[in-house]
């Protein structure tokens, strides 16, 4: 129990953790809304590109400005490197660097930037001295010119040609700076040679300035193509294109990431829906377990109560034991008295049966004698009639008169009339005695054992009614409303006892006025029923449940024992039947017994 609970707790905890982590994972994956970082990354690349073009602008400026501040040629690179570091940091997020395409793009950019900065570095060096020399050129040529002017004009034509040559050379050099061609370079070389030749023809104080001039022109000749070449190289470096490639890759990756993002969003949605359902389910479970807990609590409280009750009960047990003992004693008494009652009835039946048996013989011959007597008498009458008619003929009249007198004295006519009557009445009486005897026999069933048998209840009812007829006679009229009954499997003498008891009770319930007792019977399927209804005093409601109790009686001592209904109840129960009572005080009482046709006795 303990183990499974711990295990289930562990299981719950792990699954909760699992669900939570899946949720967090999905949330992070879908939350990893990278459009922000993509926008940042793109912005950084854009800034790098801006710096790059600014850089190129500055290069353009540097190649045309004489005294140029080269700081703006340094700062874009520093800036670009910083921006790239920031970009790299963001990109570390995207974990792109791992793919070959990205590695290549990175490497291409880095290489381009390295190339460009190398060329720019060179450009700075070469451009600075080139610009310086170009700026100095007119001054240098001027200086020579001024010096030439100060010479004594011994050979003006030659001086003039030297001056022109020098200017030509200077101009060619300046032109060369604008249009760097091999022709111009050749021109300059020619010019330089001329200047060298001229130098030899000029006094020594010219040598220095001319050397300086030709040095600077030589420098221009050397540096200008170099600067041009560097500019071409710089231009050829495709930093911007590399950055464009990266931007395109960013766009592409962002689109892909967006797709993935959307997918995770969808997953998240599905998952959270599932989770919600799970939560709902768990809520239901929780509610259920709450009610379970409540139930257990109640049970616990019940158990507590029970404990208390048990103590009470224990103390009660003793008193109850004594009560039970008392009850047992009571029951014994009841049983005994019931036994006595049934014994009484049984012996009464036995007695009746014995009497009936003994009376049967005399009844037999009395009734047959009476029959014979009746026959004899009718024949005797005929004889007497004949005698009478003969009497007229008899003489002496005295005889006939004495006969007539005698006849009058003995009231022969009356006798003759009365005798058949008496005989008839005797016949009636004897047949009644026979009936009574038969009924007695039927009632007690001495002729059969107390065994279950199929019996005609109607017959039993009739016999019983005959037995109690005397008791009924002055009290009530009997109304019979029978429906034909099938034979019922029963203990007939006992059922008779029940009927008798009910009829006697009904009779006893009558007041001074004559009442009516109605007997009904009927059959419903496997059940038969018999009703004994009277219009006697009725039973008050509060007594109704007591009437079947043994010894409950409202009758004066000696008349009622209070065992009748209790016995009847027992008998009906033995027959698996029912006995009901319906009563209203002042209106009457109806007892109804229902009996099964078949006794399906198990044992």
């Amino acid at each position, binding site marked *: 129990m303990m183990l499974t609970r711990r295990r289930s707790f562990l299981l719950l905890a792990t699954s909760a953790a699992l669900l939570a982590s899946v949720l967090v994972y999905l949330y992070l994956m879908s939350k990893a809304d990278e459009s922000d970082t993509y926008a940042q990354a793109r912005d950084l690349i854009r800034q790098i590109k801006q710096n790059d073009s600014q850089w190129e602008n500055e290069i*353009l*400026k540097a*190649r*045309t*400005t*004489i*005294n*140029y*501040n*080269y*700081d703006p*040629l*340094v700062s874009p690179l*520093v800036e670009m490197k910083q921006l790239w570091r920031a970009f790299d940091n963001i990109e570390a997020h995207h974990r792109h660097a791992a793919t070959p395409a990205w590695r290549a793009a990175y490497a291409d950019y880095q290489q381009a930037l390295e190339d460009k900065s190398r060329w720019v*570095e*060179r450009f*700075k*060096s070469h451009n*600075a*001295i080139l*610009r*310086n*020399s*170009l*700026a*100095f*050129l*007119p*001054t240098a*040529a*001027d200086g020579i*010119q001024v010096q030439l*002017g100060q010479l004594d004009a011994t050979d003006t034509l030659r001086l003039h040609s030297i*001056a*022109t040559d020098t*200017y030509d050379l*200077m*101009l060619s050099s*300046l*032109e060369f700076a*604008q249009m760097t061609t091999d022709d111009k370079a050749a021109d300059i070389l020619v010019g330089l040679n001329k200047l060298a030749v001229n130098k030899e023809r000029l006094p020594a104080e010219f040598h*220095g300035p001319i050397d*300086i001039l030709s*040095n*600077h022109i030589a*420098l221009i000749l050397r540096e200008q193509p170099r600067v041009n070449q560097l500019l071409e190289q710089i231009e050829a470096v495709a930093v911007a294109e590399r950055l464009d490639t990266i931007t395109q890759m960013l766009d592409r990756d962002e689109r892909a990431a967006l797709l993935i993002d959307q997918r995770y969003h969808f997953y998240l949605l599905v998952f959270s829906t599932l989770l919600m359902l799970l939560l709902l389910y768990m809520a239901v479970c929780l509610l259920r377990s709450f009610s379970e807990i409540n139930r257990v609590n109640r049970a616990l409280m019940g158990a507590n109560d029970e404990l208390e009750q048990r103590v009470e009960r224990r103390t009660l047990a003793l008193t109850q034991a004594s009560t039970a003992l008392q009850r047992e004693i009571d029951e014994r008494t009841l049983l005994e008295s019931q036994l006595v009652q049934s014994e009484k009835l049984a012996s009464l039946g036995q007695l009746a049966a014995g009497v009936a048996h003994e009376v049967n013989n005399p009844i037999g011959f009395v009734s047959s004698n009476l029959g014979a007597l009746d026959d004899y008498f009718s024949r005797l009458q005929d004889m007497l009639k004949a005698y009478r008619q003969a009497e007229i003929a008899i003489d002496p009249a005295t005889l006939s008169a004495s006969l007539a007198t005698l006849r009058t004295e003995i009231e022969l006519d009356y006798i003759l009339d009365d005798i058949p009557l008496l005989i008839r009445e005797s016949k009636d009486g004897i047949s009644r005695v026979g009936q009574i005897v038969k009924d007695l026999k039927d009632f007690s069933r001495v002729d059969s054992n107390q065994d279950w048998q199929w019996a005609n209840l109607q017959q039993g009812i009739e016999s019983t009614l005959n037995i109690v007829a005397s008791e009924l006679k002055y009290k009530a009229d009997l109304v019979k409303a029978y429906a034909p009954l099938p034979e019922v499997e029963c203990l007939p003498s006992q059922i008779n006892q029940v009927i008798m008891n009910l009829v006697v009770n009904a009779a006893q319930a009558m007041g001074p006025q004559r009442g009516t007792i109605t007997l009904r019977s009927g059959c419903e399927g496997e059940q038969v029923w018999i009703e004994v209804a009277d219009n006697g005093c009725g039973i008050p409601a509060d007594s109704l449940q007591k009437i079947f109790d043994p010894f409950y009686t409202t009758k004066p001592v000696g008349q009622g024992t209070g065992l009748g209904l209790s016995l009847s109840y027992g008998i009906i129960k033995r027959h698996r039947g029912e006995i009901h009572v319906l009563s209203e005080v002042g209106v009457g009482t109806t007892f109804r017994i229902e009996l099964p046709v078949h006794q399906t006795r198990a044992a």
Partner: protein
Amino acid sequence: MPIARSLRQLGAVLALLPAVALAQTVGGPLSPLPPVPELAAERVELGRRLFNDPRLSSDNSLSCASCHRLDQGGADNLPLSPGFDGKPLPVNTPSVFNASLNARQFWDGRAQTLEEQAHLVVQSPAEMGSDWQVVVRRIADDPDYRAGFARAYDQGVDEHNVQNALATFQRTLLTPGSRFDRYLQGDTAILSTDEKYGYQRFQEYGCIACHQGVNIGGNMLQKFGVLGDYFKDRGNPTPADLGRFNVTGDEEDRHVFKVPSLRNVAVTAPYFHDGSAATLEAAVDVMFRYQLGRTPSDEDKALIIQFLKTLTGQWQGKPL
């Protein structure tokens, strides 16, 4: 001479054409120093202590400050400073002042950042002769440093943070307030006429072609001996004379050096990578001869030197 004059004019026009096309930026090619940046005080302090800490050298003999003496213009006055083993280093010690404004570090420009510079100096067999594992361990063993680094950096003492602390400190080593900067900032009366002429000559002769920008140099590489072979004339060639060639191996970089800043130039003698010029005059002479290919008048030279002296700035409120 009408022809000559007209030609002259044409030449001037041609020379000026580009300049006209793109006007000179306002303020000219020189600009004043920016204010000292406000950096994390704890890191600056750590850097200051490290800068003065000899534990950075293998035998605890040299600190950064041994050569870069802040009371001597951010360098020492030796042509070649001794390394941790006492042997002279291959090149002259440049000033640490305003070094953060240089586009590159070292004479040959082999480091692009101060962090890189610190990294290379510590493990250079000639300079500190140490290695970073040792340095970091020594610093981490010091409870003060440990606590300080723990406060200033998330990762505490490590190589990167030690270098960063040193660089951070050096970024505060600016020397604003030079008379020339104040002139640039609008206080035109602060320079004497001669000094102003000196600035004009400085521009006219083309010194400014290379010594420009906020640091008046430091943002460009240049061949030493554009218009003359300095090294042949000087003699005793050393490997260090190859300059940037030692870094790139490119013929074109032979004798190429970083153009040094001229800020505080008056107080950072001797000059050049070889420390060969003991005085400003000597240095200016070399520059005219080998870089500008011109011979200035004595007057112009003097004016230029006067101008150069206006470039001396202040540190901690005092002129260097």
